[in-house]
């Protein structure tokens, strides 16, 4: 025996549960460098026409209004909210934050290019600039042995003083990639995002030009998760879950009364 009210309420419970997972993930990443919060996208499921307006009711008369009953809700996906996170100064010369649009390019172990907003770079044993997970950035930048006073300019130029030289040597330039629809990038974990058909092809360029955000060295972009906002969402989700379970309880009671009394 299938009951529309029970099923609509069940879809509500499922959707609230998914939303809670999204909120939990946002909150868990409140201190993740460069993290962008997700939002669960709710979508109404199709309506069912129980009585169609205009269909004959009795004799010559017709129903003026219909009975369209909804079948519930679903979470169609998550939308990444790409607002700028606040910048925190770290004074570490290899920490870089992007102010504005753009992503750092990173080479994954399987040779793919991934994109990230997390600029907490460090040096590998071989002297290449790598992410906190040890993945080299693209284009690869090598810091020679004995180099000191590494600086990264707003346009991405990496320079350092090399032992025995008085002049500052330019070692390379960090480029950033932009996307027409950055919301379409696919998150794969470890702060990394992958290009998809929806995001469009990356437009690689120097930081601070043609819409690419400029770089700020010695700073990190904090996550854009607002704890208070997430907590309010959490309360809202919890209450909505409760109301949906009340609905199931009430409908169940109706059915029980019917089976017991008749």
């Amino acid at each position, binding site marked *: 025996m299938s*009951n*529309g*009210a*029970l099923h*609509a*309420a069940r879809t*509500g419970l499922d959707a609230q549960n998914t*939303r809670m997972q999204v909120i939990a993930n946002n909150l868990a990443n409140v201190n993740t460098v460069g993290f962008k919060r997700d*939002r669960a*996208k*709710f*979508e*109404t499921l*199709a*309506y*069912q026409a129980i*009585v169609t307006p205009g269909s004959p*009711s*009795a004799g010559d008369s017709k129903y003026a*209004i219909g*009975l*369209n*009953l*909804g079948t*519930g*809700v679903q979470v*169609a996906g998550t*939308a990444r*909210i*790409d*607002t700028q996170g606040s910048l925190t100064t770290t004074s570490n010369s290899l920490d870089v934050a992007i102010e504005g*649009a753009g992503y750092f390019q990173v080479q994954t172990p399987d040779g793919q290019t991934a994109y990230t907003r997390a600029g907490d770079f460090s040096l590998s044993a071989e002297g290449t600039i790598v992410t906190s997970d040890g993945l080299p950035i693209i284009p690869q930048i090598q810091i020679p042995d004995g180099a000191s006073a590494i600086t990264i300019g707003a346009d991405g130029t990496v320079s350092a003083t090399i032992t025995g030289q008085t002049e500052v040597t330019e070692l390379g330039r960090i480029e950033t990639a*932009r996307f*027409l*629809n950055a*919301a*379409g990038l696919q998150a794969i974990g470890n702060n990394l995002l992958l290009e*998809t*058909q*929806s995001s*469009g092809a990356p*437009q690689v360029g120097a930081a601070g030009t*043609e*819409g690419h955000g400029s770089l700020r060295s010695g700073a990190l972009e904090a996550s854009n998760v607002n704890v208070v906002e997430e907590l309010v969402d959490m309360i*809202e*989700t919890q*209450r*909505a879950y409760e*109301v*949906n379970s*009340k*609905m199931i309880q*009430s*409908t169940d*009671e*109706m059915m029980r*009364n*019917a089976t017991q*009394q*008749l």
Partner: protein
Amino acid sequence: MDRLIYSSLTAMRGAMARQTATANNIANAQTPGFRADIAKAEALWLRGAPVESRAMARESVVAADMKAGTIVKTGRDLDIAFEGDALLAVQAENGDEAYTRRGDLQISPAGLLTTGDGTPVLGSGGPIILPPADSVAIDPEGRITIVPQGGDAAQPQEIARLKLASPVGSDVVKGLDGVFRVRGGGVLPDDPGAGLIARSLEGSNVNATTALVDMIEASRSWDTQLKLISDARDMDAATADLMRLPQ
């Protein structure tokens, strides 16, 4: 007795339909721009009998509640909330012009501007395709401006205007796909005075308290009708008892 139980049965069907409509409202308490459905029963009098004492109950969803929902600032460029009772024109699945209050816009892989559930948004000149752009903004009058790829950020270009319509004086109804249409066909005129709030989102207008009261009411009404049916059964049994011949 048969008449009594059939009248009660129609009322029970109605109570369950109302319960389903309420369940759907509650399930969509978090869907952006959702408008609650209002279910009402009407009496359907059975004519012709010597005493017109019987009326069947018929449940119907009379309309959607068009009260505004709560507007929350989100900071996302493509989130918009509508002021007053303005509706956003969209293209329904069957190609009709339909209307919605849902304002979490997104860009499809092909560059088409759609609402959060994938319904294409209509501008004054039909569906809106966004060219490659450095940034997209929507102003309070519904004009979409972009900074073209590599263009000057200080000189945004207007590429389209969202069609905002006012439902005042027209009868709009929610279809099976959840978007609004003018009853009997037709389109709403573009309302140049309509406005929107950028970087904000309007929530669902489902009121949890009202929904819970509706739910209790429907379940009590169901129980009352059940009682009537079981009383009818008792009366019938008592009649049968009276008629039994003494042994």
